[in-house]
């Protein structure tokens, strides 16, 4: 219960070639389409890219990504402030987490591994706040999406 507090790891098989998955992750317009954010600018190592969340009910929020690493069709990594949900708060002095997308070939498709790490450095106050402000909302939205993607 208290051993994996620093990272979240996800692995998924996608029935699409690696080049297709790479484009969906490493180009701002495509990233924004599924992540639900309208990003301005281009992804380049060291670049800061900002955008407005397009998720229904969260459109008043902006998000900021600092691109850390781009290895075409293998690795895309950026830093950000998870749960930065208060437009009145300046998060810039707070620690960021690192998000990595690792791509590998799989039979007829692509294995995508997503790792978000660095949670141990986020202040307790932020966790409490992010928790309270999102309470309920995400669970319901997750269910909506599940319904959406499982429809024939």
């Amino acid at each position, binding site marked *: 219960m208290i051993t994996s*507090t620093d990272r979240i790891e996800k692995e998924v098989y996608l029935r699409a070639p690696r080049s297709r998955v790479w484009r969906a992750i490493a180009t701002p317009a495509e990233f924004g389409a599924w992540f639900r954010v309208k990003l301005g600018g281009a992804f380049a190592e060291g670049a800061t890219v900002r955008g407005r969340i397009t998720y229904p009910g969260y459109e008043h929020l902006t998000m900021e990504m600092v691109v850390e690493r781009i290895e075409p069709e293998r690795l895309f990594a950026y830093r950000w402030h998870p749960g930065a949900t208060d437009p009145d708060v300046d998060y810039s002095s707070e620690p960021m987490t690192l998000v990595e997308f690792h791509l590998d070939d799989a039979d007829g498709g692509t294995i995508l591994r997503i790792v978000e790490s660095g949670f141990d450095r986020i202040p*307790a106050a932020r966790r409490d706040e992010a928790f309270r*402000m999102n309470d309920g909302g*995400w669970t319901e939205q997750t269910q909506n999406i599940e319904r959406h993607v499982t429809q024939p």
Partner: protein
Amino acid sequence: MSRSRSASVAKVAGAAPIFAALGDPTRLRLVARLSVDGPLSITRLSEGAGVTRQAITKHLEALADAGLVQHNWRGRERIWELEPRRLEMARRWLDRISDQWDAAIGRLKAFVEE
């Protein structure tokens, strides 16, 4: 929104980062011990810990600062116990972010497989 934020900040004022508080093997052992054996005195917690009572006390106080443990007085001795709500909250925050990733991955899957 700013009012609820100050309430939240006030609530945890002075708190050390909860996860950083757990990022020490001695403190992790103390938390594990308290979760298995319930409220314990410093004497009991020091048994077999391989560090001094003073060190144990310091670690417990760090955990208390993060809101993870609290103590009551029994005579002249402090009895320490776990504050499980706090741990649960940290855990649920990660679960929530994990849920958000699951949702995003679901959308990505639909996006690239269409």
